[in-house]
């Protein structure tokens, strides 16, 4: 067991963790951040995407110890201020949500992309979400939503 401290969704947080604990387990089990979904556990599907120091990572492949002293953001952060983030609004409007299981991870990848690039091209958006699998939407309305959000 060891203790880590991190900046989690804008607030200071601490956790007692095992050396082998993944960030996914810690975020879900200790902080009840249930937007962080497990879809494969091996870094293929992207459902567990969170931001570690503003960069998207697969929480299932990230050991929780790596988050020590870091800034971590999950989808809960986006509407933390009580109103929807423009990306979330765009997802709702564009019909980018079907079953919704990939949505939080997809949002975090898109958020990271828009942080880095205010007006991404279609190709940049396509690449930006390429690490996140979706089986329902065919990605089209998701890409439209990201574009819409970028234009706001």
């Amino acid at each position, binding site marked *: 067991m060891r203790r880590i401290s991190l900046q989690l969704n804008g607030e200071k947080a601490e956790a007692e963790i095992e050396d082998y604990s993944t960030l996914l387990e810690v975020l879900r089990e200790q902080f009840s951040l249930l937007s962080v979904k497990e*879809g494969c556990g091996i870094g293929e599907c992207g459902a567990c995407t969170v931001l570690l120091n503003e960069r998207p990572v697969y929480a299932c492949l990230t050991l929780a110890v790596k988050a020590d002293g870091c800034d971590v953001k999950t989808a809960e952060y986006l509407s933390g201020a009580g109103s929807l983030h423009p990306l979330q609004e765009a997802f*709702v409007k564009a019909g980018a949500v079907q*079953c*919704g*299981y990939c949505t939080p991870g997809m949002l975090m990848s898109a958020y990271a992309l828009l942080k880095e690039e205010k007006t991404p091209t279609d190709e940049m958006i396509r690449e930006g979400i390429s690490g996140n*699998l979706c*089986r*329902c939407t*065919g*990605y089209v309305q998701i890409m439209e939503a990201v574009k819409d959000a970028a234009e706001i």
Partner: protein
Amino acid sequence: MFVGENLERVDALEKVMGKGMFAGDLRMEGMLFAVVLRSDRFHARIISIDADDALSTEGVARIITHSDIPGANGYGVLKKDQPYLAEGYVRFFGEPLAVIIAESERIAREAALKIRIIYEDMEPLNDPFMAAVSTVTIHKGGNLLCRKSVFKGDTKKAAADSSVIIERTYSTRRVDHVFLECEAGLAFPDTSGRITVISSTQNIHYKQKEVSRLLSLPEERIRIIQAPTGGGFGGKLDVTVEGYAALAAYLTGRPVMVRYTREESMLSNTKRHPLYMNYRTGAAKDGRLTFLEAKIIGDTGAYASYGAVVALRAAVHATGPYQVPNVEVESSMYFTNNPVCGAMRGFGIPQTAFAHESQMDLLAEALCIDPLEIRKINALRKGSETATGQVLNHSVGFYDALKCIEPAWKERKKTGNNGFGLGCMFYGIGNTGVPNPSACHLTLMPEGKIGFHLGACDIGQGSDTVLTQILLETLGLEKNCVLLLKGDSDTTRDAGSSSASRQTYITGKAVFEAGSKLRSYLEEKGINKGRSLKDICSAASGEGGPIFDGFFDPPTTPLDPVTGQGIPYATYAFAAHMTEVEVDAATCVCRVKKVHAAHDVGRAINPDAVRGQIFGGVAMGIGFALMEEFIPSRSKSLYSYYIPTSMDMPSVETYLVEDEEPTGPYGAKGVGEPALIPQGASIMNAIRDATGIRGFELPCNFERLCVLSENNDCNYSGSKFKG
């Protein structure tokens, strides 16, 4: 006005906020975890299961094998032949053997590794052709699950009169659903001994019946609640975790969570059937189809599941959306020691579409007719008769769908290594030649709202939203007047499964019926004369709380068991896709560049949701045609089984044809499966156009395409089989 509007999804807000509580997110005081141990043999006799070490592991609460089951150890939608826990034999790699229940998931998984099983291996049957002739039998009744046929006219005579006859054999492989959310469920007993299961599912009332049989408890003592469901595509129709969670909760008296890892999901879940399809199609000089003979052989895996449905649907749809006067189709399913194949988006028709659409192009080529033209010549239209002898009198928008893509087809330009292909389909909405009703009901709530009791499962496709739109349109009330009370077997009626693209059409019509009754009631009570809904609602409790029910069962007739003639569906959806691909000559990698997708949906209740289905269908069709192949014991997770990413998606142009269906709600039919069905076929025809190579085997991944191009064998057709 709600019908035809892009109403925002009723569940979108909670989902973008990450607040959707999927089954695997649920927690309860004192909750245990259960893990299912599965076989690593294809076909074996179980000599012994030694769980002593596992049981003595700290934190393990109990280990269950088949002898602990209080009721019937068998489930299945048509045939209760699949054991929850193996009894003496294992029949596929992944067959469940024991359930380990522990204080944590980790403990349960570690304990599972300590269980020692001694097997005596038996000869495995790994393909349906072996199964057809082998003396080894997987089940007592033999290896043939079923044989379905459709006969009409005289194909022999028609063959003699045909100008051209094309005969080829096509085959497809197993496909996994890969819904992003793996199966999960939580079961708990209450103080009265009732068992509640909250799970990721496509059908609550069916699961209620199965769990009742398993536990030998009356149905009213079982309650099934649908959690938000992270995709289904047919894979959450059969019992998945529900049985194990319910059994564990019943036997331990505590809440129990079962959630599969991706590996467990892929090991246990049903797959799309591999079909081997020998097609012989004839046409006259003018392009008119004269006859079709098809022999379809399917590998249904170890248990029945939806195998017979797939065999039948494949037979009934074997002609594609064309008028064929003489038809002879025989469709057989064999048991093998492969993974159980069941329902997956399209029920056999994505496979037959690959065959009939390739045949159409081959005929066009042989007759020097444009591929679009030959489809127009033969298109089912008003007054046409299908292979089962059904005359289509309304809502036959196939010709219009072809007209939608015609401009793009005419403007297509070969610029190098690109190519263009067409794929078409028709799809019967609802179950085949059997009753498949939906029911729902409405109540008046004291707070002044309409209680919308809905047993249909929204699995991501958006049925909650579309059915709400239908209700609001019927009632003529505002959105906030309705409270959706859904997915709970205690408070809703059976609306059938979310399968066969049936919820918008069938449940939608039931909702319309209930809504119409309520509307009359509200009008009678003066809603249009200044009386408020709240007032009417609170007064209604004095009348004993009236219930307004809706029911719809589409008018069909059973098919003749020998000839397959009859009216299997009340209505059909139609679609035509045109696809442009680019094939790299050096690597044989095929990229899908552009898709034009035209769909006759009857009426688009929510056009954005319809488009969403089409985009998703296109993606899944790309996977089916180019990459997805589930190999038993080798396809273990998403590192060895690939599905399309955003990088694989083309730009997609959608065209909605609205040839209204008079029996549907506001004319609507369905689109869930039609969206996928023609896509694979159109890609294969486009590859032919781009490279001169015609593939007869799916998936046509770059390895297969490389082999075909190296052999330069442009009409390779595999071996002709004799079934």
